[in-house]
């Protein structure tokens, strides 16, 4: 969720209940006030009637207008006691002037006239104030809604303005590359917290860059440190092998030392290359023509293709890709050598290059079905192969970095790897 949406949402969540509560409270308060007024009015009428009865010892004439009416009825003798006190009630009565039922508020109270108990009802129409309350409610709701919208808008504008430097910082961070030579430089902000964030990030970036260079230096030195003793071993092996007084068995043992040394050197080199790719050390980009790269590599592989008597199906269109030349070479080399290395005798090798993808397919024995396993470092398709198994890890890393899509699979004895030039293809 975006920051702006989040603040909007929180704001909305905070303000809406307050508005609703305020609306409900005002509604009921208003209604209470109106009810109280009505009851006061009815009690006023009661007092008038009671004083009239006291003075004249008889009831005033029955009275009815659109809004008020009163009438009296005789009570049965025995119920005098029960009729003491007032009772208020809401009811609906027929308004003969309007010719419809309307809500009324009613007050009933007893009076004694010449020893006779009467119950008097005084009613007043509440239609008027019902209307008023309704209008008020609509008015309140509208005002609150408008207020809410305005506040949300203001909040949005303000947030956007306040967070602007933050977004700038974010964008800068996104563009930040460890391998770049320029240090991270963020534009200064007048907001204290943002400035603090920027300073912290700049320091962090500086620290990370320093560590990165240390590690880079370290890997290079490690490679140097490792390659030199390997070179010593290898040279000694070569010199020993020239010794004619050595037995055949001894020579073989020494040769094995040489082979292992070579494997170690190869592994070391591959690991270094992979870490370099992972460290984004090949940032340069140019238009790379893929067809010549593939053709060159296929020529290079011809001995291995001939030895396995592979059936070649090559279909290459002209295609240039905006990428790093070295990475493109590494990608092509790894895909093709893998397809040849893991091919079976008299198998098939199909290479297709078109506008949207490079597809390399080869016959293979089944263990290669495990795509994920193959991707892992050091994993090997064939336990007897001496290949280092870093090839596909490199392919994966290059595709990820260059924004290429990669799909691999094994079906009906055919292993296929497809590199899509636009990730959005699938």
């Amino acid at each position, binding site marked *: 969720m975006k920051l702006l949406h989040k603040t909007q949402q929180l704001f909305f969540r905070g303000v809406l209940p307050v508005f609703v509560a305020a609306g409900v409270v005002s509604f009921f308060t208003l209604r209470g006030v109106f009810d109280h007024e009505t009851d006061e009015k009815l009690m006023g009428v009661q007092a008038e009637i009671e004083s009239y009865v006291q003075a004249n010892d008889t009831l005033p004439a029955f009275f009815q207008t659109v809004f008020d009416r009163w009438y009296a009825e005789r009570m049965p003798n025995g119920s005098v006691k029960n009729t003491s006190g007032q009772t208020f009630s809401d009811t609906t009565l027929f308004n003969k002037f309007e010719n419809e039922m309307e809500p009324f508020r009613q007050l009933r109270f007893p009076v004694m006239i010449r020893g006779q108990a009467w119950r008097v009802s005084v009613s007043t129409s509440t239609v008027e104030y019902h209307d008023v309350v309704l209008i008020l409610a609509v008015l309140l709701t509208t005002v609150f809604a408008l207020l809410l919208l305005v506040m949300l808008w203001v909040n949005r504008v303000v947030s956007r303005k306040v967070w602007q430097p933050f977004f700038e910082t974010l964008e800068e961070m996104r563009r930040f590359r460890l391998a770049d030579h320029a240090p991270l430089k963020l534009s200064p902000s007048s907001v204290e917290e943002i400035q603090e964030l920027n300073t912290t990030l700049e320091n962090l970036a500086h620290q990370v860059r320093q560590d990165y260079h240390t590690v880079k230096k370290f890997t*290079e030195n490690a*490679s*140097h*440190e490792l390659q030199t003793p*390997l*070179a010593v071993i290898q040279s*000694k092996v070569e010199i020993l092998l020239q010794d004619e007084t050595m037995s*055949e068995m001894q020579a073989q043992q020494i040769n094995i030392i040489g082979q292992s040394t070579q494997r170690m050197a190869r592994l070391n*080199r591959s690991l*270094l290359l992979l870490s370099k790719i992972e460290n984004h050390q090949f940032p340069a980009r140019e238009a790379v023509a893929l067809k010549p790269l593939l053709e060159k590599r296929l020529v290079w592989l011809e001995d291995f293709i001939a030895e396995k008597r592979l059936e070649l199906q090559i279909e290459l269109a002209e295609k240039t890709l905006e990428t790093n030349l070295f990475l493109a070479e590494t990608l092509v080399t790894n895909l093709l050598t893998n397809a040849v290395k893991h091919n079976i005798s008299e198998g098939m090798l199909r290479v297709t290059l078109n506008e949207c993808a490079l597809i390399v397919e080869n016959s293979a024995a089944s263990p290669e079905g495990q795509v994920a396993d193959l991707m892992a470092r050091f994993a090997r398709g064939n336990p007897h192969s001496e290949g280092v198994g870093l090839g596909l890890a490199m392919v994966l890393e290059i595709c990820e970095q260059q924004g290429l899509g990669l799909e691999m699979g094994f079906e009906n004895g055919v292993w296929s790897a497809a590199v899509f030039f636009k990730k959005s293809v699938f």
Partner: protein
Amino acid sequence: MKILLIEDEPELAASISDFLKAEGYLVEPASDFPTALEKAVVYQYDCLLVDINLPGGGTGLDVIRALKTLRPEAAVIIISARNALDDRIAGLDFGADDYLTKPFHLSELNARLKALLRRRHFGGSSDIVFHEIRVNPNHRSVYVKETLLDLTPKEYDLLLYFLANQHRVLRRESIAEHLLGDDADQMDDFNFIYSHIKNLRKKLVDLGCPDYVYAVYGIGYKFTDSK
């Protein structure tokens, strides 16, 4: 032929030195930057073998730069553990003629050194002769008893490699790496060299050449006229 060997690892320097002495070179060692710089500038050598990382306040690249301003024609081969692309490019930009990444085969160094010296001293025009075999490196052509021998590029490279490393056991891996170049790392199965060797031997023998190629069981091959 005088060679200046700039290498700080004593055991590696000893190996290279022994190997090159056996080939008939005079080898002068230098194990740190000041010695290397002094010798490179003061004396004349037919070729310099230069390691990039050196103790003593400078790199092999600095030595090459200093040397090349004095004697632009000097022959230089870089031997370095750093296979960083930029090092290689920088080295070749400074005028190094070749670049070998450690670890390398001494026989490979030998072949490259011979090719470089031939280019420098005879403009590549001198033929390589071994009994009835004559190779003209300029035209990449091979004659046996003055009959032109038709070889594939790989067979030609193989023959030249054998000729550069006569009487010496060449390991299969070393031959394969020589034929494949830098990318040999990519492959792990070097059986393909059998067929090239078989074809080369057949072509030579067909033209009346004795078979100079001996298989050394489990290890590799030897090209020699003795035995």
